[in-house]
């Protein structure tokens, strides 16, 4: 019998020739598809695809229900980005506000378009992309920490199906971005403890730097990474390496903080502007009465308030799973170097507790008798921790047990997500709908509608603080040109308009009685000179916190 050589993947093999070869059955479409998917679609890609599909679906869903810009802050964030490109004084100085600039910067590529600005896509797209990235890195982080694909899927599931995050990723808010930067940073911190590679340190630092330009919480997380990296390096090769890693990390991780401080110093001549002025500043809360800061100096109440926020954000079933997973993790790994960065996920918990206890900021939930919903978004940064620890549940026992646990955990997560999304209002959305600023949407729309029907030209003098909803709706719904507004973001023009409004504007719109927050009303209501030229045309009743809205028009002639 003759033989021929044929090449296979494993090398040369000899097969007999001369006999009729029986053709192998062609596999069906499904097995072929399944084989192709197994070869080409990795877990990460699957997570990304699922997250992307949910992201788009829920953006459309909330958009259809008019909830994309339900938060007053989401409107404000879009306006910041918009005025960098389109306003009387466009430019980088427009970023200057209480908020860090990256969310607005990420909106710039699309915000110039009136359509994308109006329907919220320009503002929401960065959040949506961040959500998908967060999902992928959540999977990677849990898989690396627990050495288990199941853990990765459970952790990613907790994040992907979180109702609050699904809502926030559909909006121009900063929470999805902050979570994403946080998860990526911790993933690379974790990788460093496995690879000891400089590139992973740089990537971790880059993620932290990104986070520090999104929310101030991320500054604290950035600081918390330092001792973990230094300790890892010190254990490996002593002081010199610890110093090198610390410098390498800090140079990049805090470059964003330094740039922001420098920016404030150059533009506003005040490096720490955001800390000392505005409604969210330390100074503001230092002067706030105790009844508005119910957790100040009450540790147990702070714990209850924040604990309840986290539980309501993530769902009680997942909290129970995560607590079990946490116990399992501590029992198994304790303070092992390779899993030490996992504890970084708990930093937000400590941070927010401290913030509430010290009275640096506040939060309120009606079920605790503290008033309407406020700042309940603080719970979102704990999703990574709970997801990661829930993932550890799927790492106990033999293979079958692990698979069963992972499957059960995923079923619980899906059930919890569906209930949270469809059987009730997602937790953070309650703040936008029923919270302190909930009625600004309605009043802002009503004011804009009236103004549009009575507007016959001329500039409008208006303060961004405390409520820019009026301007937002005029720009997005009624397509007013950006340059008709003379605002506190226009520097010298605003000062001149305030000094002699009759020479600059036809309309003055103020939130009177808003605790001197309105930067137009605060100086004007003490003066009488301008009243000779303007007449009060319309008054809107006070909403929850921003006082009465009064619209003045310049007298004709």
């Amino acid at each position, binding site marked *: 019998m003759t033989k021929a050589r044929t090449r296979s993947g494993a090398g040369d093999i000899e097969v007999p020739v001369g006999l009729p070869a029986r053709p192998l059955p062609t596999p069906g479409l499904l097995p072929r598809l399944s084989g192709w998917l197994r070869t080409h679609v990795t877990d990460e890609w699957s997570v990304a695809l699922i997250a992307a599909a949910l992201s788009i679906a829920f953006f459309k869903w909330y958009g259809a229900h008019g909830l994309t810009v339900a938060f007053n802050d989401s409107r404000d964030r879009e306006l910041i980005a918009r005025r960098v490109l389109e306003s009387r004084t466009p*430019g*980088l100085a427009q970023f200057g506000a209480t908020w860090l600039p990256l969310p607005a910067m990420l909106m710039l590529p699309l915000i110039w378009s009136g359509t994308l600005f109006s329907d919220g896509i320009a503002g929401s797209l960065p959040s949506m992309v961040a959500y998908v990235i967060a999902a992928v890195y959540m999977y990677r982080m849990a898989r690396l920490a627990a050495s288990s694909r199941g853990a990765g899927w459970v952790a990613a599931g907790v994040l992907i199906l979180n109702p609050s995050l699904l809502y926030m990723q559909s909006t121009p808010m900063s929470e999805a971005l902050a979570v994403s930067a946080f998860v990526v940073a911790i993933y690379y911190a974790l990788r460093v403890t496995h*690879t*000891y*590679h*400089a*590139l992973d*340190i*740089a990537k971790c630092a880059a993620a932290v730097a990104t986070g520090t330009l999104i929310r101030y919480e991320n500054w604290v997380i950035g600081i918390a990474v330092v001792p973990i990296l230094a300790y890892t*390096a010190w254990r*490996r*090769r002593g002081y*010199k*390496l610890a*110093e*090198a*890693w610390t*410098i*390498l990390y800090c*140079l*990049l991780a805090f*470059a964003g903080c330094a*740039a922001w401080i420098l920016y404030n110093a150059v533009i506003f001549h005040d490096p720490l502007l955001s800390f000392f002025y505005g409604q969210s500043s330390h100074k503001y809360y230092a002067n706030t009465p105790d009844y508005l800061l119910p957790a100040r100096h009450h540790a147990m109440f702070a714990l209850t308030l924040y604990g309840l926020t986290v539980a309501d954000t993530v769902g009680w079933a997942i909290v129970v799973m995560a607590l079990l997973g946490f116990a399992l993790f501590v029992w198994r790994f304790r303070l092992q170097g390779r899993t030490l960065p996992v504890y970084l996920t708990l930093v937000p918990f400590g941070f927010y507790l401290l913030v509430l206890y010290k009275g640096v900021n506040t939060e309120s939930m009606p079920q605790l008798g503290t008033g309407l919903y406020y700042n309940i978004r603080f719970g979102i940064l704990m999703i990574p921790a709970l997801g990661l620890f829930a993932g550890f549940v799927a790492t106990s026992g033999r293979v079958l047990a692990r698979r069963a646990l992972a499957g059960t955990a995923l079923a619980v997560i899906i059930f919890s997500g569906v209930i949270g999304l469809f059987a009730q209002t997602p937790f953070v959305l309650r703040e936008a709908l029923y919270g302190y600023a909930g009625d600004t949407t309605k009043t802002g729309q009503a004011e804009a509608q009236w103004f549009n029907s009575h507007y016959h030209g001329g500039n409008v003098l208006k303060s961004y603080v405390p409520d820019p909803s009026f301007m937002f709706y005029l720009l997005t719904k009624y397509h007013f040109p950006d340059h008709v507004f003379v605002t506190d973001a226009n520097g010298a023009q605003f000062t001149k308009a305030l000094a002699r409004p009759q020479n600059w504007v036809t309309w003055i719109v103020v939130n009177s009685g808003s605790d001197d927050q309105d930067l137009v009303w605060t100086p004007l209501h003490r003066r009488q000179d301008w009243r000779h030229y303007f007449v009060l045309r319309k008054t809107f009743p006070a909403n929850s916190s921003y006082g009465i809205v009064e619209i003045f028009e310049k007298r004709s002639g």
Partner: protein
Amino acid sequence: MIGRLNKEERPRLAAAPMPAGPAGAPDGEHWATSWGAARDGARIVVTRVQAFALALLVALSAVFVGTAARYALIVCLGILTALYFATGVHKVWLLIRGELAGTGSAADSHHEEADEFPLYTVLVPLYREGRILPALVERLKRIDYPPERLEVLLLIEEDDEETRSAANDYPLPPGIRSMLMPAGQPRTKPRALNIALHAALGEYIVVYDAEDQPEPDQLRKAVAALQALPPDVACLQARLNFYNRHQSVLTRMFAIDYAVWYNQFLPGLTAGLARPNAFVPLGGTSNHFRVEPLRKLGGWDPFNVTEDCDLGVRLGRASLRVAMLDSTTWEEAVPRPRPWVRQRSRWVKGYLQTYLVHMRRPVQLLRELGVRGFIDFQMLVGGSSLLLLVNPLMWALTVMYAESKGTHLGNFIQTLFPPVIYYPGLLSLIVWNFIFFYCNAYVCVRHDLIDLIRYTLLTPLYWALMSLGAWAGLISLIRNPSYWAKTEHGVSLSDAEASAGVPIGYLHTEPLAGEATT
């Protein structure tokens, strides 16, 4: 020096035949400065056409400034900003490519022992190196290569009494011999190399400086790689760094600078193995060549004070490739600012010479190097040199603006930067500069130079020193184009170390890990 090329000098030099002459007794005066690369090289700094173009540019600029000064300044700042932005993008791209390529070389996969050892010639040009000659010989003796297959030529200038007497006094082992270079001008390293290239017997050739200390197995690695790689790979470049990097703050900064260049940028350019037509600026030493292509190419340009960079361009133009060799040669860093500036001035001067030489016929250059090679050449040779010269002016303008903000002068400066110039300029100033600054720190950790990392904080001062060197180089180019600002070697050695023949560096050097993950 302005001149016109003869018609017979214009054709490309790739096919320039090696002149006949008695082996071992080259008539350097006759042809070393008029053969090959020298004929179309930096002997003439600017051609008449270039001089005319430059004069025209200056005249038009003067007219523009005279008639509309503000717009002229805006245009000028716009061009510079575009250049800053483009070089920044290009360098970041190279850094990323370098990181993706890793520090390994195309030669990495060919490290198995060579089947046979061809004759290898080592060229060591010397001038006034008598003091360190014993140490040099001891280091050369450490090269791990069959002695009967190794030819080491110490290239000594005829009138260099110091080195000649040192070579006579110190017993040279078999295989190492001195070779006298006949008197002549320009008395430069490439001229000596050309003479030696004529006499060299080796199939491969490598150039080391007087203070160099190659890793002992470097030649074996080079042979293995050159035998395995395609014949169009004409040159392997080993990494360079310093054995005396702890001598001063400047040597530390210099070591970081070299680590960035040889571990990030050059791998970015070659990405393992350069494409045909790629431009790779060679380092001055530790270039391992196949002799025949080098001879066909016309050797080194004796009038160019960075003959290595020039040769890199000519290799690319002749479709010959360069690869990185995974081996390090340890050199001596200049430890004091004044000689450091002198050395840097020579480098920038040479880069300017190289730029002017190859831009005589830009279209031909573009055709020969291809778009990517052409961009690499523009950015690394022309752009980098120009920006080093411009940097102090821009820094001064920034400081002036910050100090005069709100005044008439401040307002005037502000009007020079419309948004289309301001924002790219700001990006270049902050983001690019930060990336390059951070890259220094990154390289320290990536390549196990962790004891240097704190010195990266001084990077801006180092940049200022580089600009000082650039200006010195420009002035030297105008006043004395072929003057070779020689670097003094052996300054890190005590007299005892130098004369006792202690192999320097082995006392101080810690190995630089090629792929270190700390």
